[in-house]
């Protein structure tokens, strides 16, 4: 069963003369538990595709099926709930509240979900244990190293037990050694918990570790290697 599927996905920006097609009709089907790398040159449309798959953006045409269900006509409220419960996000620039504690940062998706404070803390501590940072729970997020920060972000992404984790250049800001450790955590989650991984990356080594590589050039998928 495919966890997510895109059919003839197009996305264009601007109007008339300045109209620009970032995605020119993409078909892709991702199975549950797969780890997929989206690779391609800068400006090729990798992030655009990821945002569409993560339901953060609406395609100009084409449709996205989540667990075989069409998402085109889902109401905003449902969409928010879906993203909150099914997806986890990891970004290149971490995006965390640096003045807040590690624990509070990890609890954020649960807070949004409206889960009670007690349960929230338990789940967040479990997620921090997963990335081996449970001892830093009460530290200020700002006091952590880059690699540790990204691990906190992974904990935040997996705290709600998502089906899919979307990662846009997760190791882009890290040196190769710490990058490898972060990658290891992601692949462990993929293997042990069956979480589907969709990783946008420039890094060929990281791409090679994934089950599957989708190559994009100028808004078209040119190669899909398993």
């Amino acid at each position: 069963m495919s966890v997510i599927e895109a059919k003839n996905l197009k996305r264009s920006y601007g109007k008339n003369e300045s109209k620009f097609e970032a995605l020119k009709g993409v078909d892709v089907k991702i199975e549950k538990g797969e780890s997929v790398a989206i690779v391609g040159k800068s400006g090729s449309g990798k992030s655009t595709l990821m945002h569409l798959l993560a339901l953060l953006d609406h395609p100009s045409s084409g449709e996205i099926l989540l667990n075989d269900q069409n998402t085109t006509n889902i109401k905003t409220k449902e969409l928010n709930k879906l993203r909150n419960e099914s997806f986890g996000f990891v970004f290149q620039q971490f995006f965390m509240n640096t003045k807040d504690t590690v624990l509070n940062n990890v609890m954020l998706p649960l807070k949004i979900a409206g889960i009670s404070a007690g349960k929230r803390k338990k789940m967040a501590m479990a997620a921090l244990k997963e990335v081996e940072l449970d001892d830093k729970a009460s530290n200020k997020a700002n006091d952590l190293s880059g690699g540790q920060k990204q691990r906190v972000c992974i904990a935040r992404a997996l705290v709600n037990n998502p089906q899919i984790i979307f990662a846009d250049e997760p190791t882009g800001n890290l040196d190769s050694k710490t990058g490898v450790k972060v990658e290891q955590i992601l692949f462990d989650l993929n293997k042990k918990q069956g979480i589907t991984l969709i990783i946008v990356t420039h890094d060929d080594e990281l791409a090679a570790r994934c089950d599957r590589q989708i190559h994009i050039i100028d808004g078209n998928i040119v190669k899909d290697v398993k």
Partner: protein
Amino acid sequence: MKFGDILKSACTNLMRNKGRTILTIVAIFIGSFTIALTNGVNIGVNDYIDKQVSGVGGDDMMLISPKATVSMGNTDEPQKYDPEKKTSTMSQNATLNDKDVETIKEMDGMKDADSVKSYSINYISGASDEKYVFSSMPILGSLEVDLEAGKSVNQESKDFEINLAPEFVKSLGYKSAEDAVGKTVKLSTTASATGEETIVEAKIVGVRNQSLMQGGNSLLNQALIDELSAIGEQGLPESMLGQYGMVVATMDKATYSSDKEIADLKERLGEAGYAGQTVDDEIGMIRNIINAITGVLTMFGAIALLAASFGIVNTLFMSVQERTREIGLMKAMGLSSGKVFSIFSIEAALIGFLGSVLGILGAAGVGNLVNGIASDSFLSSLTGFTLIQFSWSSSGAIILIIMAIAFLAGTLPARRAAKLDPIESLRYE
């Protein structure tokens, strides 16, 4: 996201940039302080005036005198004399008689009418035997006497009783108000026909509180007035008896209560040749002035609040700017636009709440201080006058109104935050 969490995150955001938050709150504080203080003065003064009104006579009382008619009237021709109408000119002292009392009593909207007997008192003397000029008046309408000591005079009693004005206590030779109660004083009155002087003894049953409207006036009971009036009329020919300068009427408040109905009643009195005046007419002027002054001050407070709400808009716009990433991230994680809006508008309402509560507390503090100083100095002669008073209801109303203003100001930046596109806000520069 639960409401408690929204509230908490709004608080956390306020604490994040303390300096900016405090400055915004100070702006609200100034407006709230001004309004709370002027409102306190308004309540204090109006409360005192109300007390005074009930001290002069009930609010259902109307004082009626003959209408003073200018001889030219409204037309250019001299007005014809009508023996039935009380068409006296200013130079003549018009009087009313028992027939007038009946007429007034019968009028629509009147419950009762009583003549005010005239009497004269030459002097009063007490323990010190010193003689003093003495002004006094009968108890009119349903009067509540504001007393410093003793009790109110008994209208039913046959004994001669006085509620003494506080100014007289020391001069008459008593140590204190309490000391004066129960003592007997001498009142001197003269028969107008014969010029013969008579001394009447009366008992002080109570001492009045200082009064703004009736400073120095003592109150006499009916028995004493009847006696003084009888002595005054001794030897007068029959035709000059039973003449009154004024009639006290009691309005039927059950059916005549609105300003319009009272105005209508006065108009009908005017047509019948009388002039009616309520207690509120006499004091209304002071009330209007006070309301005008406090109204202007409240306006200043409102202007301060308007300026402060721009402060809120500015503060929150800066906050939205700084937190663009965070908002984008939370929206990506499924936080609805409505909740983002709530976080920011509640933040604004919180600023309003803190500013208004602090402003009211500040005003209450300053009010207490001023009240303390005032009652020891320039208001010391006006007992029962608390210059600045606060009420829970008006303080609550001020807080709610300011919170509403702050909330409205907050909706602008909150809308901007709610409309942020997560992809746009998460784009790395």
